């Protein structure tokens, strides 16, 4: 027992959390039990500890009973530790004389047996009561927030976040990997449910980004390293050579006309390979910035070094620079918004639908391009044979709601399928069949759009398609693709011959989401989307302070939701910047120089280079500003002379001893438990 035993005065509070805790844990029994533990002056249970009266209870007890330690048993410390620390501080006590016990997430919510749950709660309470005696007063620690912001990803979410921040006067770096901003939205034809043209509403925002004095736009660039912490991140951005001087190019496109390739030859990725482009190209007419790119993979000069370089001659501004090399920019920012988007499901992973085998099986994104007036067919929706389809089948949930591929609902496919059904009917007059499992039209005015489609006499067959086949069962099916599905509403299996199949492919995390996550030190959910700090209450924050997420990188969502989230992420960043500083956990390490033997074993362990060896004193020394508080060095110090605030050895041993019942003898109280 610590020698200052006599002076320790602990207040213990256990929360009912309504029924959340009290239904499984006998909170009265726990309070009664803890009241019998040494040093405990007061032990109470209360309906909602986090409520104002609950917090007031703590502050009042500190004042009235002269408490100098507080333990609250309620929910997870990740949720309310700050709340209770503040309450403790309001009572006039150093906020770090506080320890929290998680009896909700770790006990009542995961156990059913009331007796076992109550005993576990008692153990955890006892451990905390014992641990808190070793707590020390610490100073609150603040850092300054650098006012500049980095936005990664130039889709609609990134664009909106960047504009919001820039309009509020913040300097924004917008980094986009492709040669143009715009993302997937730029590839869409119309947007649901209003059917306004995607380009018409997107391109003004793209131009605004380009023109904004507060936005530094770097396209064809990727973040290569991130160092630092909230308020002070150092970021390196790799700028890939586009072999065109961005300052000089005015987008006249003369170089494209004069390219030695008279006809476009290579698959145009913006049109998903449905059309061709030359090695020097502009992704699409409204590309922003309107600067051409030269693709070294296909350009003759790069492949053989023997090109006439007609493009260079064609440019009267001498903007083409085939010797351009990659550059790296280093910037300082205080906050980061990640809006790296999604990728569409690879339809080849569901071979039963014949994508890649049957030429007239298209993905939804391909059809967006086919309908689009600036698309590969100039907006004429035709099969590969160049004919207008008379019947089209749209298969929903391709790569969604399927444990063989992706379990989640991609949330957008129902609505965009309805939109495509409408457009297909409008453009070609075709009979359109939707094959769906459930229609999810939960957004504002989405249900009304579904109504409209029903009245347009689009077919809705509730049944997931098993296969698309070219095997005709009756002569009338010859020459068609046949979709076989059970019409579950009618209860029969139907075979429907169509001229074109559209696969409503789902949304997936970007292929490199894992790398990006590591780069920015945030978490991913099991599916691979970036993980928000709290699914309800912190939807744009991450577990890393100062890094926010917006748009489909966090999970499948449509344009309105992405924009809303981008606005929220921008507001979060702005809040930090305007506040000017942020509080850090004071859980950094410190060195007891007296006992340090100077063995240097800690020094190579620190990944943040916070530890060094002081030749003069022969001891290790720690730069607290660099220390992030992991405690790895503490665990390694053979003499125990490095300690970590809030996680000192004595505290952890105290917790273990408390848990294992070696300190306090439990008596009859335990037996009382129901």
């Amino acid at each position, binding site marked *: 027992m610590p020698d200052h035993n006599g002076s320790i005065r602990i207040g213990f509070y256990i929360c009912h959390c309504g029924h959340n805790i009290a239904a499984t844990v006998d909170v009265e029994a726990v309070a009664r039990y803890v009241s019998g533990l040494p040093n405990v002056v007061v032990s109470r249970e209360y309906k909602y500890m986090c409520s104002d009266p609950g917090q007031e209870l703590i502050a009042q007890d500190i004042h009235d009973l002269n408490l100098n330690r507080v333990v609250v048993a309620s929910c997870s410390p990740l949720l309310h530790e700050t709340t209770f620390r503040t309450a403790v501080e309001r009572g006039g006590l150093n906020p770090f004389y506080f320890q929290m016990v998680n009896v909700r997430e770790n006990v009542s919510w995961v156990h059913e047996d009331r007796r076992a749950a109550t005993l576990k709660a008692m153990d955890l309470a006892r451990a905390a009561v014992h641990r808190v005696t070793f707590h020390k007063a610490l100073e609150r620690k603040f850092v300054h927030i650098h006012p500049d912001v980095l936005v990664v990803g130039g889709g609609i979410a990134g664009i909106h976040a960047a504009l919001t921040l820039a309009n509020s006067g913040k300097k924004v770096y917008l980094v986009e990997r492709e040669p143009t901003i715009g993302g997937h939205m730029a590839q869409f034809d119309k947007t649901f449910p209003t059917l306004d043209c995607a380009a018409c509403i997107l391109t003004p925002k793209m131009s605004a980004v380009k023109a904004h004095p507060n936005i530094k736009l770097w396209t064809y660039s990727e973040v290569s390293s991130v160092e630092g912490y909230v308020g002070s991140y150092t970021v390196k951005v790799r700028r890939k050579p586009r072999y065109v001087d961005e300052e000089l190019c005015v987008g006249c496109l003369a170089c494209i006309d004069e390219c030695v390739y008279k006809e476009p030859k290579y698959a145009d990725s913006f049109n998903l390979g449905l059309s061709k482009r030359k090695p020097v190209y502009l992704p699409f007419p409204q590309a922003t910035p309107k600067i051409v790119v030269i693709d070294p993979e296909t350009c003759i000069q790069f492949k053989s070094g023997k090109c006439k370089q007609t493009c260079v001659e064609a440019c009267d501004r001498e903007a083409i620079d085939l010797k351009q090399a990659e550059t790296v920019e280093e910037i300082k920012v205080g906050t980061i918004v990640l809006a790296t988007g999604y990728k569409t499901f690879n339809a080849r992973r569901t071979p039963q639908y014949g994508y890649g085998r049957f030429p007239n099986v298209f993905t939804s994104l391909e059809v967006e391009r086919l309908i689009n007036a600036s698309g590969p067919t100039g907006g004429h929706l035709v099969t590969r044979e160049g004919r207008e389809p008379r019947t089209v089948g749209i298969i929903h949930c391709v790569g969604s709601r399927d444990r063989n591929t992706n379990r989640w609902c991609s949330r957008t496919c129902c609505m965009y399928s309805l939109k495509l059904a409408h457009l297909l009917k409008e453009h070609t007059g075709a009979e359109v069949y939707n094959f769906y499992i459930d229609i999810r039209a939960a957004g504002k005015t989405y249900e009304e759009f579904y109504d409209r489609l029903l009245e347009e006499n689009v077919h809705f067959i509730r049944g997931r398609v098993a296969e698309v086949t070219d095997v005709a069962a009756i002569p009338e099916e010859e020459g068609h693709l046949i979709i076989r599905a059970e019409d579950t509403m009618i209860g029969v299996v139907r075979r429907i011959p169509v001229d074109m199949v559209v696969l409503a492919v789902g949304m997936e995390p970007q292929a490199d989401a894992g790398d990006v996550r590591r780069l920015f030190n945030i978490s991913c959910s099991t599916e691979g989307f970036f993980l928000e700090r709290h699914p309800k209450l912190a939807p744009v924050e991450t577990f890393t302070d100062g890094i926010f997420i917006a748009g489909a990188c966090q999970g499948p969502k449509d344009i309105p939701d992405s924009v809303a989230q981008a606005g929220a992420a921008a507001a979060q960043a702005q809040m930090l910047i305007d506040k000017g500083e942020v509080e850090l956990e004071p859980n950094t390490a410190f060195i007891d120089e007296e006992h340090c033997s100077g063995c240097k074993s800690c020094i190579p362990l620190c990944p*943040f280079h916070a530890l060094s060896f002081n030749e003069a004193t022969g001891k290790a020394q720690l730069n607290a500003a660099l220390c992030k508080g992991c405690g790895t060095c503490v665990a390694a110090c053979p003499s125990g002379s490095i300690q970590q605030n809030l996680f000192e050895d004595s505290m952890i041993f105290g917790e*273990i001893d408390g848990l294992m019942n070696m300190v306090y003898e439990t008596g009859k109280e335990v037996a009382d438990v129901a």
Partner: protein
Amino acid sequence: MSPEVNSNGWEPRIIAFFCNWCTYTAADLAGVSRLRHAPNVRIIRLMCSGRVDPQFVLDAFVQGADGVLIGGCHPGDCHYMEGNYKALRRFRLMRRMLENMGIEPQRFRLEWISASEGERVRTVVNEMVETLRPLGPLALPQQRVRWDEELHEHVTDEKEVKSHAG
């Protein structure tokens, strides 16, 4: 730890050291998702699995734990870059040491559980409880008493000591 009595009269007691960023968060998620699991684990939250001092593990066993579980972020995902690798290194060393001391390797486990793997917390906890059940109590505190008695017998019975020395 309080005595939890089941029909056999004994329940495995496990101390878990979970890192704040991944495994502790996953345990929270298991809670939010109401993933019921065995009540035999007591979690101690640390900032990083790299903070797990081998002495914590020894202390837990010495104080009467039947098993010790360490939970950290997946390799490459550590919030502090490489704390989990340090944990892994220490874990391997420790397990060998514990084995030499006669503590079954199944009693000491290291798991990578990311923040989104609430389900995994449940699986690992349930698995570990089931693995420990057939092993029975480790009961080091009582064992120490037994060892003391044994030693005492050896010392009093001089012949016995000699024959061993020979």
